[in-house]
């Protein structure tokens, strides 16, 4: 039997949405308040969904401890309480939640193999959220 398991995590980070290819006035027009030079922050809620056959011996899709360890090591330790604009992943791209979710998906895909990575869902605020299941080209 194939089941989907979803775990939710919280991390906090700051960012500024600013594209180097646009003028200052264009940046302000596109990003509005998010273009504030000093940045701002969010409490992000991250939902990781993995899938697989339920192991008959353990009753599990994967051991939650292994998933928690991987997410803590690869994602939370990296993105919690940091300025996203200073992260290596965002030196050539704007740290929108769209770009962040693709980065998170790709990191987990490479570093967690105990179950199939089905979907990542990322809430930037309680009012907006994003989902990504892989296979989209990275945007600049």
């Amino acid at each position: 039997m194939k089941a989907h398991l979803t775990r939710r995590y919280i991390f906090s980070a700051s960012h500024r949405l600013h594209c180097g290819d646009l003028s200052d006035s264009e940046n302000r027009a596109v990003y509005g308040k998010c273009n504030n030079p000093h940045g701002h922050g969010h409490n992000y809620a991250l939902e990781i969904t993995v899938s697989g056959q339920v192991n008959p011996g353990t009753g599990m899709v994967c051991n939650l401890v292994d998933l928690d360890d991987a997410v803590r090591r690869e994602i939370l330790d990296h993105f919690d309480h940091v300025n996203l604009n200073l992260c290596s992943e965002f030196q050539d791209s704007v740290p929108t939640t769209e770009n962040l979710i693709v980065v998170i998906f790709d990191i987990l895909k490479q570093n967690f193999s105990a179950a199939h990575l089905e979907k990542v869902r990322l809430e930037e605020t309680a009012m907006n959220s994003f989902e990504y299941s892989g296979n989209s080209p990275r945007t600049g």
Partner: protein
Amino acid sequence: MVYLTRKCEFSASHYYHNPDFTEEENQRIFGKCANLNGHGHNYTLEVTVKGEVDPKTGFVVDLKELKEILNREVMDALDHRHLNKEVAEFATQIPTTENLAIAIWNRLERQLNMAKLHRVRVYELPDLFVDFYGEA
């Protein structure tokens, strides 16, 4: 096709222990959940059914009938129970959230005839849930 989701909550106790494993294996794999004195959760269940909207009633499903099935098959059987000791499915299976979602699916699917079961979602905690779509 319209999807309808009904939510309910139940509380139950359980432990994770496989008699085919050594004590060391049980501890390593299941951690605190292997404590044979058990522990409990407030579970939230979301049952999603799908179907065409009946042109006369405007319903995908008669919600009263769905609630009766949920009460009889899930709430009466699981609420304020010890899953390992009182629920037949878990005499031979570990009552993980994965197996719980599958057991609830099997209990509901054979009772539902007015709409098709689409998904069973079981929250063990607000930050941990399992979805089962009836996939082999």
